[in-house]
């Protein structure tokens, strides 16, 4: 069973949703191998109805024909409006009234047929094959076979690179992000359906918006794992657009996704608790919208002696799997460590010295006589660069019992943090 779609628009994409074997038969005509679809949809009428429904979702106005061979389907689709089901064995009768011009004969052959008064498929089919062979040659015989609806051949499938892109030209500029979200949802759902029909997912999404002021706004999202969760994608896009709104109203939307194989991993029955990766990404983006873009992540210590040096890295949930008990034992230190709360920035302090050690400390919300102290600990580093540093550290206990770390550097005295 073969189905031919005839019309305008991206018919290949539509046909590919129903069959992996799709042929671009003629301008505006795409043929697909529909064998096996009867197990999914049932009768040929149901197959045609399913294709018509999907075409309507795409916004395409097409003709559909189903036949036992591809050429009969093509002829029916080109010649008859709506949905046509060519009955097997009765192709010649069904296609009989179609004009011979649909078979695309050469101009000379067409002129000859015109002179003979051959106007439709039936006229051509009634001619004796030997006579046709003598007068019109091989091309004449091929045309007669096509007119009878009995030409048998294999499809020449198109091998298109897998590109999942979709765009939308807007009739009027869209200013509000909420309105834009509806359009993004439409594009996302279309792309996700196309990915799903090929058993694929995506880990990267690109959005390009053409603006009213002729500028282009681009943004991209990366997902920790391949997914098809369109709701999460849409929310992430919304958060991204809220954080970085376009400079002007949007007139054109283009969206592309990177197709990858979906994640096939089964979590262990005794695996420790961990957030679902896409949900985690969504939560982090939501928290970033509150706290700030660069203030959410995982801290990574830097390989330096500079006190408090770290950088923020993207939080991925700590890689795969959990720690085994032995690893847990190795990681955990045996004793409780006294923690430092590090003020950012360090508090500028007024320190009165009593015989070379701090005797009284006054800073923002900190004030007291030093009862006990340890230090100074002299530290320096990066002297081989332009960012060299030098400091003297003191641990002090104030009259109220609070413990602080003070340091002195060329810029004066500072309270680095409090022990807690």
């Amino acid at each position, binding site marked *: 069973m073969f189905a031919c779609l005839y019309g305008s628009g991206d018919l290949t994409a539509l046909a590919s949703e129903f069959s992996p074997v799709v042929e671009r038969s003629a301008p505006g005509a795409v043929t697909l191998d529909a064998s096996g679809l009867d197990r999914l949809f049932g009768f040929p009428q149901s197959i045609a109805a399913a294709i018509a429904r999907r075409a309507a979702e795409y916004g395409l106005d097409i003709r559909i024909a189903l036949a036992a061979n591809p050429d009969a389907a093509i002829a029916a689709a080109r010649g008859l409006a709506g949905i046509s089901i060519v009955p097997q064995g009765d192709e010649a009768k069904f296609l009989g009234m179609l004009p011979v011009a649909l078979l695309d004969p050469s101009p000379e052959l067409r002129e000859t047929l015109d002179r003979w008064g051959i106007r439709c498929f039936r006229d051509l089919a009634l001619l004796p094959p030997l006579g046709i062979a003598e007068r019109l040659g091989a091309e004449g015989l091929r045309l007669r076979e096509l007119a009878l609806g009995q030409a048998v051949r294999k499809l020449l499938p198109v091998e298109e690179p897998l590109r999942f892109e979709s765009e939308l030209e807007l009739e009027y500029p869209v200013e509000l992000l909420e309105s834009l979200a509806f359009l993004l949802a439409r594009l996302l759902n279309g792309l996700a359906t196309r990915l799903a029909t090929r058993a694929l997912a995506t880990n990267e999404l690109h959005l390009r918006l053409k603006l009213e002021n002729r500028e282009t706004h681009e943004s991209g999202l990366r997902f920790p794992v391949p997914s098809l969760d369109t709701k999460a994608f849409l929310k992430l896009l919304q958060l991204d657009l809220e954080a970085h709104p376009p400079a002007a109203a949007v007139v054109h939307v283009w969206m592309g996704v990177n197709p990858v194989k979906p994640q096939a991993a089964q979590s262990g029955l005794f695996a*420790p*608790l*961990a*957030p*679902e990766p896409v*949900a*985690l990404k969504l*939560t*982090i983006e*939501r*928290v970033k919208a*509150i*706290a*700030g873009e660069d*203030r*959410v*992540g*995982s*801290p*990574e*210590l830097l390989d330096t002696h500079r*006190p408090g040096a*770290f950088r*923020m890295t993207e939080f991925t949930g*700590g*890689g795969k*799997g*959990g*720690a085994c008990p032995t*690893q*847990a*034992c190795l*990681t*955990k*230190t045996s*004793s*409780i*460590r*006294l*923690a*430092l*709360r*590090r*003020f*950012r920035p360090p508090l500028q302090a007024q320190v009165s010295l009593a015989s070379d*050690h701090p005797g009284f400390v006054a800073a923002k*919300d900190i004030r007291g006589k030093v009862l*006990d*102290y*340890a230090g100074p600990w002299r530290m320096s580093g990066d002297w081989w660069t332009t960012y060299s540093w030098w400091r003297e550290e003191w*641990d002090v*206990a104030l009259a*109220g*019992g*609070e*413990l602080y770390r003070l340091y002195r550097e060329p810029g004066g005295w500072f309270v680095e*943090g*409090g*022990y*807690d």
Partner: protein
Amino acid sequence: MSAAPLPKRLESLLEESRNWQAPPPVETISSGIPEIDIATGGLPRGGLTEIFGPLSSGRMSLLLSILAEATARGEVCALVDAEDVFDPCSAAAAGVRLDRLLWVRCQHSAEQALKAADLLVQGGGFGLVAMDLGETSLRAAWRISLASWFRLRRAVEHTPTALVTVARQSNAGTCASLQLECMRQRTDWSGVRGVSRLLRGVETRVASMQKAAQKSKICLPVFTAAAI
């Protein structure tokens, strides 16, 4: 078999069948300090644990111990830092696996911290969500309405996440399933002052109050947070 034990066995069977609908026991996680775990039974999952006390009373050390224990189990944890005072070096020294810790550095705002904690709890999947209000001023902490704490408690209920807050005083009140009050007992120094003096650590005593028991009791094991 004698006839006498049969009624008793029947009674015990009926008793078992009567109790099968009882709520399951609360799952708890370890604090990393055996003395506290023994005294309190551990920190409840699906509940709010409040750690409070004055400055330098070992609250952060206790929190780092809880985080170290959770991350060592392979759980993903989050720390909402209201005043941006978390020190990753101290955490690494305490055994916290930093790659399993999501750090939210709020811009000196308790309100931001509450919103972020709420989102993280709602997001789900975290073994532990900690909110540090330890450097937040008393006035700002008091301004957090009880409704916000109720909202947090409702969000964490029936989830496998343990929610821990650190503050200067008790703010959550009845919303907390477990309250741990840290009290500084002693600061240990060693060596001769001005020559080889070293800060050795802080000895902390913890008073706990469980919502279920509705009574306060002092856990006398005390833990010592070592500086070296």
